């Protein structure tokens, strides 16, 4: 089924790319902004800064009081937030149609005039909040550091994806007001931003409102640097072990992958589905269902733009089983997949699940707007939401096998093992 969500696009003189996708099914408008800055842009000694900065965007700007962005828009029936990731930072709200110009005005105020309001007290408070976020999500959670260890093990030390978006406590402590000013001047500005509007409005209304509120902002951001060149796969296995108070052993087998929005990346994501992502995947069938040496097996792919993407398999080792043995069996399955390629049923299943999952994510205005901003900002492809499934369906079993041979063999793996600590280790 070809998708035909309407896409209208315009770039303002100051460089702001605006995409409008009318949808009158709900009397709402989603305002979604992507700024081309994420943890991949962070300087050494300042990890976690892009995310800390995002928190400060809610602490007031020239004409908006601290906290008012949340309180005012929620009181108008808005649902809103912001997130930071390796590649970018996004800001979004879905509001009743009659409030979308207020939302745009407030966004323009903070994206243009944040520095008028930033102060040491706000920085110190949000630094504390972010440190609690880190403790809640990573430090006080079993296996909470698994992905952080994975990034550090699979990517080289000087690579943009080597460190996590949450950063380190030391670097968060070191962040200063001067850093906030410099970061804003360097990365924030309409010429480094995409604005997507989805909902009950016409393209003309959307473009006029974007011009009305964002038109006066200068093209202040520095030019983007070029993305890094494609990283090659790891050629012999690397390993990192952490002995911890965890209920059972857990392995992450991680792989470098081709960059996002390429046929090779799509093929790699289908390969990982067949290997470990589907409920009928090879690893689930063998290790979880038949041999019952793992409680669970999963596989995921994360698409990035800066020279590499990430794929990984997670194996939850069953009580009393040897993690080395389970890992060896998983490696047998990787080898077999590279040798045989996917079966017809695996291709059919992976594509069918990808279709439902994609249609499900496009079902909400919020996620549709986010996907449009993502592919406009990072891939210059506003039509992506309509073309993705056709592109995925065009990937052949031969391509999936070729990608698996190049990127997903046992020798390409980085293993992060979180193992149950012995009594001595805990003490």
């Amino acid at each position: 089924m070809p998708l035909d969500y309407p896409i209208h696009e315009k770039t303002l003189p100051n460089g702001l790319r605006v995409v409008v996708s009318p949808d009158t099914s709900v009397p709402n408008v989603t305002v979604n902004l992507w700024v081309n800055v994420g943890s991949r842009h962070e300087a050494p000694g300042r990890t976690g800064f892009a995310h800390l900065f995002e928190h400060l965007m809610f602490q007031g700007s020239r004409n908006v009081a601290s906290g008012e962005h949340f309180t005012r828009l929620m009181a108008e029936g808005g649902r809103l937030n912001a997130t930071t990731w390796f590649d970018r930072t996004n800001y979004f709200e879905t509001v009743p149609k009659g409030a979308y110009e207020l939302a745009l005005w407030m966004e323009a105020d903070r994206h243009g005039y944040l520095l008028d309001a930033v102060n040491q007290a706000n920085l110190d408070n949000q630094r504390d909040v972010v440190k609690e976020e880190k403790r809640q999500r990573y430090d006080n959670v079993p296996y909470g550091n698994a992905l952080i260890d994975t990034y550090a093990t699979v990517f080289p030390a000087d690579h943009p994806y080597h460190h996590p978006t949450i950063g380190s406590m030391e670097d968060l402590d070191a962040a200063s007001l001067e850093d906030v000013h410099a970061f804003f001047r360097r990365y924030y500005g309409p010429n480094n931003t995409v604005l997507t509007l989805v909902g009950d409005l016409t393209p003309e209304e959307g473009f006029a409102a974007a011009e009305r509120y964002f038109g006066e902002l200068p093209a202040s951001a520095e030019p983007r640097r070029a993305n890094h060149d494609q990283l090659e796969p790891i050629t012999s296995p690397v390993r990192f072990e952490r002995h911890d108070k965890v209920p059972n052993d857990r392995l992450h087998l991680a792989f470098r992958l081709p960059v996002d929005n390429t046929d090779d990346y799509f093929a790699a994501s289908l390969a990982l589905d067949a290997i470990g992502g589907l409920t009928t995947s090879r690893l689930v069938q063998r290790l979880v269902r038949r041999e019952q040496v793992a409680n669970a097996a999963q596989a995921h792919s994360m698409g990035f733009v800066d020279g590499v993407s990430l794929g990984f398999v997670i194996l939850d080792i069953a009580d009393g089983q040897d993690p080395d043995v389970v890992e060896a069996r998983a490696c047998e399955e990787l080898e077999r997949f590279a040798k045989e390629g996917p079966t017809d049923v695996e291709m059919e299943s992976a594509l069918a699940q990808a279709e439902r999952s994609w249609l499900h994510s496009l079902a909400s205005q919020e996620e549709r707007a986010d996907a449009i901003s993502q592919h406009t900002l990072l891939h210059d492809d506003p039509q992506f939401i309509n073309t993705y499934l056709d592109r995925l369906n065009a990937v052949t079993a031969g391509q999936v096998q070729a990608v698996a041979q190049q990127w997903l063999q046992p020798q390409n793996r980085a293993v992060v093992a979180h193992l149950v600590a012995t009594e001595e280790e805990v003490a």
Partner: protein
Amino acid sequence: MSARPEVVPPQPWAFPEPERHTLSNGIELLAYDIPGQYVISVRTVLPMSLSVEPREKEGVAALTARLLDEGTARHTSEEFAQLLERKGIALGAGINDSGLGVDLDVPKRRLGEALDLLQQALGEPVFPEAEVTRHVKTRLAEIEQERAMAPHRAAREFIATFFDGAERASRPSAGTHETVSSLTREDFVEFHRRFVGPQGMTVVVAGDLSGVDVRAVADEVLGQWRAEGQEVVTPNAEPPVRAADAARIVLVDRPGSVQSELSVGCAGPDRRAEGGWAAYPVLSFVVGGSPNARVDAVLREEKGFTYGIRSTFRPRRRGGLFLTNGSVRADSTVESVKLLLEILESGREGFSADEVRAGIDYISKTAPGRYATADAVADEAATMALDGMSTDFTTETLLAMQSLDGDALAEAYRRWVDGTWTVVVVGDASLYADQLEELGRGAVTVVPN
């Protein structure tokens, strides 16, 4: 900058109206046609009470739900999984204190095939020995995972402390290590035979239904299902009894924790509560529903003790809870508990006009967006059906909210919040037990993790 734009208020909104049909075997069908929603969401619900489980077999209901698609009369577990996956179907099943739910999402063109498989899962599971063994082991591992996660550990201790020990509600709905270990294939066969059938069941279908004769499609498979001897379970008529010593502090000891997980609560209303339900979603928002609600305005935005704490009135089929949950920096534990209880009790003094307006507007004006997608509509309809209600209740609640004022909110709050709390802290007992005792908020008991 240009002048701050004025806001044009939205039009009133009502929850979508379903088509209602009764299938040949008595299943109630609710069909919500939502143009443009290409993934169809199907929710099957069967009201039930977990108190039908024998005490020593607790968890049998939850594991019955998980085993429904692990082997049927016509297909092995692996074949069934493959049939679902090749058609792009996501199927999940679970149970809570209101009943059994089986959920399914599928692209529109596969709806008929999906309902056929759904019927097989509901009506023809055979509980193969190997799958039973595997799921019992998986649940036992899951119990250990839950023990390791602070929010789960806090929730388990909260119900054990708050509810009387004779109540099913005081123990995990999916069973404990002891009860789950004792489950055998026969237990599942028996539970399914006695309690799972079309009587009392509601099926919700939501999505773009243009060109689909939902009634015919559903009747062809689900409507033909018969279950001889199904026992219909009447929901409990009374709320579970609160423990006589519920008003106290329990510290789950985790030496070295960098945060303390807090779970604070008291009894709350269900949807049929005297005085109406409409005040409670508003109160949840005003007290602890956003970064600038009363709790986080102090504990997050002023003190920086937490990433965020949320309060919510959580209705059960009968009775309910008013719960506040979140984690705080370890060395702020005592001050956080003290401040949190003071903030929660401050609502008894009333709410400002701004708080009242913001709370009502947030809940009512976000409704069109919160219920815009097929899965959200289907989930709400399923929740209502499990509670013996319809989504008319959703619309009526939004309408009733409009006439609430500060006095009504304060009265509704005081009806439940009387200053006696069950407090669970998952954190380092050696550092905080004595100081928590000194707060004078009840005896402190330390339990192992």
